[in-house]
């Protein structure tokens, strides 16, 4: 019992949106589609829902080819990023509408609407109209409408993006609970790696219409197959520096040299790309093998309770993620410490050669 996407290609007006998508999603599973904007997440969901038809390839549910089945007959439900409700119907009727259309008995409808509203905590608003509610309540209403029918596939297209931070955390935590006892295939699209990680489940990494890697969220974090996967999973993006390995030492951009520690030992000589997570770089040394770099501040941007500091020297640029709020003047000199035992190593084609052992073992 599963949803199979068989070699799906989709082009619109000559531009390719999806290429060679092959995925199998099991019943009762929670799946996350992770990718930046324009990665093809929404396109893929629309194909699964039946709103668009793939240029070629098949959508197969439980062994039945759905490719030519109309959206009304697919038994899917979908929650959009925008709060989509029927403004002329009360919240109660909004939630009941899929059941009414399916000609479910009135008593059954009343019961199921009540249950679903209770789960999503919108019972007090059942007799109001959607536009009289707050954004969070509106989105809860559209989620309730998606959950009230026993859909075999439930699609969430970045449903929490338009909500404020606290509500987002709250709804996300609830969402995971909602799917525990369902036998539906849930698919959740997001642009944020930490959201994918928080939701858990199977993650499919999409980039420019291609599947980059699939697997459990934590597995991809610990074992990214490629440089692309590692950088998609890092927020802000992972720092990448070209370097060369010789018998005893590593040189980054021919300017910074350090010796091969235990971590990088055994790396064959040659050219590589080294990656270091912004959160691993610090303003103070943590370890003996930290590399001290004299950099110049380009920009310090504050994001929530963190500061992303962009620094550069004449050879490369780095993004440093710092806890707390730091004020730095532009062009100010700063010393940063790069942990040489926490380096990702990729070959020049972008394949992962080595992931730091602290990432492989550590919690995400």
């Amino acid at each position, binding site marked *: 019992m599963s949803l199979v996407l068989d070699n799906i290609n989709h082009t619109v007006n000559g531009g390719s949106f999806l290429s060679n998508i092959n995925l199998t999603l099991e019943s009762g599973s929670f799946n996350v589609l992770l990718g930046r904007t324009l990665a093809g997440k929404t396109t893929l969901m629309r194909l699964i*829902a039946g*709103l668009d038809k793939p240029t070629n390839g098949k959508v197969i549910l439980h062994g039945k080819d759905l490719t030519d089945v109309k*959206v*009304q007959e697919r038994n*899917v*439900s*979908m929650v*959009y990023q*925008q709060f*989509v409700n*029927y*403004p*002329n*119907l009360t919240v109660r009727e909004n939630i009941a*509408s*899929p059941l009414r*259309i*399916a000609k479910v008995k009135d008593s059954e409808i009343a019961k199921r609407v009540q249950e679903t509203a209770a789960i999503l905590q919108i019972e007090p608003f059942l007799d109001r109209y959607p536009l009289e509610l707050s954004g969070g309540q509106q989105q809860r209403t*559209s989620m309730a*409408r998606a959950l009230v*029918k026993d859909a075999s596939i439930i699609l969430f297209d970045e449903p929490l993006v338009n909500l404020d931070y606290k509500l987002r955390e709250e709804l996300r935590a609830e969402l995971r609970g909602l799917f525990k006892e369902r036998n539906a295939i849930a698919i959740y699209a997001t642009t944020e790696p930490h959201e994918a990680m928080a939701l858990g489940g199977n993650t499919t990494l999409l980039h420019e219409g291609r599947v980059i890697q699939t697997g459990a969220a934590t597995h991809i974090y610990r074992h990214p197959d490629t440089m692309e996967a590692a950088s998609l999973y890092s927020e802000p993006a992972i720092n990448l520096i070209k370097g060369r390995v010789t018998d005893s030492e590593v040189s980054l951009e021919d300017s910074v040299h350090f010796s091969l520690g235990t971590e990088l030992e055994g790396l064959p000589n040659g050219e590589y790309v080294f990656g270091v997570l912004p959160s691993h770089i610090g303003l103070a040394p943590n370890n003996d093998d930290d590399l001290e770099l004299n950099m110049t501040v380009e920009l310090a941007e504050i994001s929530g309770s963190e500061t992303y500091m962009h620094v550069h020297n004449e050879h490369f640029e780095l993004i440093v993620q710092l806890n707390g709020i730091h004020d730095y003047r532009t062009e100010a000199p700063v010393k940063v410490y790069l942990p040489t035992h926490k380096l990702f190593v990729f070959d020049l084609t972008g394949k992962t050669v080595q992931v730091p052992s602290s990432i492989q073992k550590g919690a995400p």
Partner: protein
Amino acid sequence: MDYSLRKKLGLALYIVFLFIPIYWLVIMSFKGTEEILGGLTLWPQSFTFDNYHTIFTDSTWYMGYVNSMIYVSMNMAITLVVALPAAYAFSRYRFIGDSHLFFWLLSNRMAPPAVFLLPFFQLYSSVGLFDTHIAVALAHCLFTVPLAVWILEGFMSGVPREVDETAYIDGYSFPKFFLRIFLPMIRSGIGVTAFFCFMFSWVELLFARTLTSVDAKPIAAIMTRTVGAAGIDWGLLAAAGVLTIIPGILVIWFVRNHVAKGFALGRV
């Protein structure tokens, strides 16, 4: 005098000025012909309902109203039935030449109605539609349908496409979605459109007069033919005029909220 008071006074004067012709029409309808022609009186000296009595008892008069109302209602119904699907297509689908077609529809309104008069007259005479209500209603559609498509398209484009898709996902077929979800969402637009159809069709004279003779003759045409042996019956004419304004007032009263919303949201 402070500014707001001056503003109020200016506005009041303006409204009084606007209402003078209407006031004159109303008092005239309560006067006899001798008084109207006799001299300037601001209030009827001999108040009379005779003019109204004539209109409500003489079938050549009141049938004019009935005829007008019949073809106006027909026109409104036909226009909405035709324009709703057309506007939906323009707002939701991309097809070859869609923007050109949309503009072409509007450009129909730019041609002087007289251009279409002869072909309509000839066509209707030869197919036996001359002097029928449907003939006038259809002729008026030439002008009301493009306007209706244009107004409705604006309202429909204000409804996100995701609403359509959510309805399909919920299991609504297209007709059910259109009737139960979509139409209620654009009801302001429908109200505004119906109002504009009414406005056009109710006051239009050229087509209505040319395409009818007896059975479907509209009130406006009857009013232009009140020259009797004793000259023009001014009082009767004024009463007919007052009665012509009333349906307009009623329609505006019913759609006023929608029109206000329509002006704010749509494409009016």
